[in-house]
């Protein structure tokens, strides 16, 4: 099993969710996050007071999947979250040691 973490542009969330559902992903955890990468921030001006906003809002997805699905998941995210512009985000993949469904106590891929 793998845990796929993807940081994407917020307005791409719906597209990505649809694509992931389409390839059989059963669940996603979504968090609103802020951060910076190579995309620069922006400045805001209020009555002459200028603020540089370094941290930009992004959405973080966490998707736990069986090994067989990982490549499809990556492909689905890459194709839907891509705008071709700087700031589209990143995908990180980790090994997932165990997964447990709390309600039934199932362990392993069947818990996903």
């Amino acid at each position, binding site marked *: 099993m793998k845990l796929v973490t993807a940081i994407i542009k917020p307005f791409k969330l719906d597209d990505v969710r649809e694509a992931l559902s389409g390839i059989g992903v059963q669940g996603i955890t979504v968090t609103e996050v802020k951060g910076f990468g190579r995309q620069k921030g922006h400045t*805001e*001006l*209020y*009555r*002459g*007071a200028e*603020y540089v*906003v370094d941290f930009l809002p992004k959405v973080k997805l966490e998707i736990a999947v069986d090994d067989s699905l990982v490549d499809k998941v990556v492909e689905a995210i890459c194709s839907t979250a891509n705008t071709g512009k700087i700031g589209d985000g990143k995908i990180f993949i980790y090994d997932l040691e165990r997964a447990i469904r709390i309600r039934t106590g199932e362990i392993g891929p069947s818990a996903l």
Partner: protein
Amino acid sequence: MTRTMQAITRFGLLWLILLVPTLALAQLEPTLEPAETMVALVEEAAEAAEPTLDSGDTAWMLTATALVLFMTLPGLSLFYAGLVRAKNVLSVLMQCFAMAGLMSIIWAVYGYSLAFTDGGTFNQWIGSLDKLFLAGVTVDSLEGTIPETVFMTFQMTFAIITPALIVGAFAERMKFSAMLWFMALWLTLVYIPVAHWVWGGGWMEEMGALDFAGGTVVHINAGVAALVAALVLGKRKGYPTTAMPPHNLTLTVIGAAMLWVGWFGFNAGSELAANGTAGMAMAVTQLATATAVLTWMFAEWIDHGKPSVLGIATGAVAGLVSITPAAGSVGPMGAIAIGFLGALFAFLASTKIKKALGYDDSLDVWGVHGVAGIVGALLTGVFVAASLGGVGLEEGMTMGQQVWVQFVSVVATLVYGGVMSFILLKVVDLIVGLRVTEEQETQGLDLALHDERGYSL
């Protein structure tokens, strides 16, 4: 970018070019001597007769009074609420609301009496205590052609909004208890005397100072108190290195819009009658504000490259402030000139000069109300001239003399209001302390002082 800049500059120039002929046109107005004589005759006749209640005037003044209260609750409250950070939103709403309560009671107990009765020997400086606890203000008492109750309540709404304006200067850091102490003392020792000087038969009125709806009494007074308060309390923690952007400009725009609408009650209501002067006050209020809105918008566009929502809303307030002293004296084209200059100077004061000097007048009470108030008060002396479309100077008064009188009243208000505010703040600091602790300031005043949060999302 350069193309946008060129386009903007062209717009700006067009704007200036429009102003010049309007001023020239104002000078071409035909003289209406026969009509004026008629008016004078009618007025004399009216003076001779015992004043009676006019239901038209009364209906308008009931409405105007409600409009001016609406400027504070919720207009100014929302204007300010949107400008602070989310953790302090309730604190400024609370401060404005508390003003509506506290000032009404002070006004009824002694404020109205001291401001608007004849003080005998001391009438130059202060009124009497004849109407303490509103003694003698009955169902039947009249002030001109309206019930005195309406006049008293109308003036009460001015005594509410003026201290509420000052709230913006020390937002996000003043103790609520200290704010109540300071405001009660300030109304008593600053607002009431100055209101008497200008409107209650005091020395400024005798000198011939023109202040139709409160340029000196309300805006310069609140502005200088705000500046002094910002200096005495000191900067907010982290200012100016920490970002402190407005948390909800939507609220601010709604508040500014309510102020604009409510200001018709403030300015046109200051005639205390539903007549031609009130009508002209309404028209010039709209024109000055419209000009100021465009002035601030283009100034920011030229200066920064983009026009901003906060800028256009602030421009509206600057325009409304600058026309306030002039509303009953100037004509439409004079109003356009006053709105333009009022907004221009307020723009420079709150976006450039404040930054250069480094004081933390958090919501720009001095920059907008103080500065636009001064510009308006001085220009009233210019555009009152019949040759510039105004109602005409008092007999025997030259434009230079009128401007000098205006200047003296501005300086007197600045000095008296500034010094008294400083003393009162120091006194309150000794009694209860002015500032919240650093920890409370970081936590936000909503939780620290009121055990509440504005937003539970």
